[in-house]
């Protein structure tokens, strides 16, 4: 357990090293926050109660998206490039010899990364958004706490998805295609483009049931107070269910993959 805590701290520190890059990322997130907020305001101006949100909740949703984009790695990023590259080059053989669990090792590192991105890339855009727009911020500290729990579950779901993507390199050798597909799915089904409550008919129902909705839609609904009491429990159960299912799938794929691993020499 101590080992994984050290790995997580390492993941945090590793990303915290690049201060200028973090500042630049915050700047870009903020610019996009402004742009998308105006488009949502135009939409909610015509349909004031669209998707069950009022206009200030909709704008809050935009800024939550910008704040969580990196934390929940909706467009990918984080560890999967590195892991799939290690699989491609054969360095994975070294990792498999280590006296640590492969999946837990990368999970710990990714949790550390997510914690840094929440602090480093999440807070400033949210504060700037709150200064420029009338945001619907939770009054109760419990809602904030409930939100943080939901974000944490979202990060684990995101990890579970990206771990499967990275392991696909065992079969595909070049993980770029799979990573791009995962990026597209993440962007579309997380609710980053538009809240999933606005997706029409069957597409909406499917999108809300898929794991990616745990990355933004569910945490945002918790933040906006749309999920309380029994609804909150259901939201957590949904996220935790996907997290467990994806982690188990990752384990299964890992054991299949390592059984067939043939390390390339040279």
């Amino acid at each position: 357990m101590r080992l994984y805590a050290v790995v997580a701290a390492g993941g945090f520190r590793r990303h915290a090293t690049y201060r200028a890059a973090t500042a630049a990322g915050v700047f870009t997130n903020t610019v996009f926050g402004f742009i998308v907020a105006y488009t949502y305001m135009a939409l909610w101006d015509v349909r004031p109660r669209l998707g069950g949100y009022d206009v200030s909740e909709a704008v809050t949703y935009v800024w939550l998206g910008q704040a969580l984009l990196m934390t929940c790695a909706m467009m990918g990023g984080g560890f999967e490039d590195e892991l799939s590259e290690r699989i491609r080059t054969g360095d994975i053989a070294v990792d498999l010899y280590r006296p640590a669990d492969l999946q837990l090792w990368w999970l710990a590192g990714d949790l550390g990364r997510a914690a840094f991105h929440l602090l480093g890339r999440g807070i400033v855009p949210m504060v700037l958004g709150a200064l420029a727009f009338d945001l619907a911020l939770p009054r109760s500290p419990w809602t904030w706490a409930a939100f943080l729990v939901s974000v944490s579950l979202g990060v684990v779901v995101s990890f579970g998805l990206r771990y499967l993507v990275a392991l696909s390199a065992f079969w595909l050798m070049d993980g770029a295609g799979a990573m791009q597909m995962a990026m597209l799915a993440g962007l579309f089904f997380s609710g980053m483009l538009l809240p999933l409550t606005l997706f029409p008919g069957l597409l909406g129902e499917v999108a809300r049931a898929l794991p990616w909705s745990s990355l933004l839609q569910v945490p945002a609904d918790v933040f906006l107070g749309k999920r309380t009491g029994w609804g909150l429990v259901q939201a957590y159960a949904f996220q935790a269910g996907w997290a467990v299912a994806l982690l188990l799938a990752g384990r299964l794929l890992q054991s299949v993959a390592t059984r067939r691993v043939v390390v390339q020499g040279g």
Partner: protein
Amino acid sequence: MAEAEVEAGAGRRDVADPGAWREDAFAGRSRLLEGVRAYGLIVAMWMRSTMAYRASFVMTTVGNFVATAFDFVTIMLMFTHVDALGGYTLPEIALLYGASATAFGLSDLLLGSVERLGRRVRDGTLDTLLVRPVPVLAQVAADRFALRRLGRITQGLLVLGYALVTLDIAWTPLKVVMLPLMVLSGAAVFGAVFVAGAAFQFFAQDASEVQNAFTYGGTTVLQYPPSIFAKELVRGVTFVVPLAFVSWLPALYVLGRDYPLGLPGWVAFLPPVVAALCWALASLAWRTGLRAYRSTGS
């Protein structure tokens, strides 16, 4: 690409004045033509290299197409709930979108690679480019030329085509001329923004993502009508970073609509002038940046 190792000390001398020796090497030849020729050669090399992995090329191009099409999918999803956004119908927004997406796609394909400059400054591989007898900008622009970016151009053209088919425009010869003029000058304006952003990376290094706010952010702004944005933002996009000349002003002329800032009608014909001005400023920034470059020396 095989990267020749540059010795730490050797790089320094050239770095002090990277342009000086090149003038002798190219005496009597046009530097611009030489740059374009070199650019073409490097691009051809990267295209051959891309085609070595044909399946990967097809997948990444489709991916590029889908990823950039998401922007329009978002707009279409919005229009499942409304008939007009900021007073504009879907085909009208499609014209704004198609024009800016195509223009941006062109500049992204031809010059988008310059955004990788920060990485080369950081790891010192820019030194390799400095000792080659080819203009650095041509090398940086052609570096890892990504043919998959045709995906973005394709989807931009498709949306533009949809707009032109569905819109009921009172065509005049001027409006017809405006279409290619808008896309080409727009690509030039975005190209200048790319080069200026690359020049900024000589100083910023790690902060290369700032550039995305102006390039990707810029094209996102232009995909929506100006009427939905705050006046300050519209002013900034018109007078500070003149992206409004990429698509807003010329496209609104084609649509026969007024621009929110009450500018006179003839400004719609300014895009080529604005593009030239942007390139003058961008080349100045590029030269300043290149002159200020100090190698990592490692």
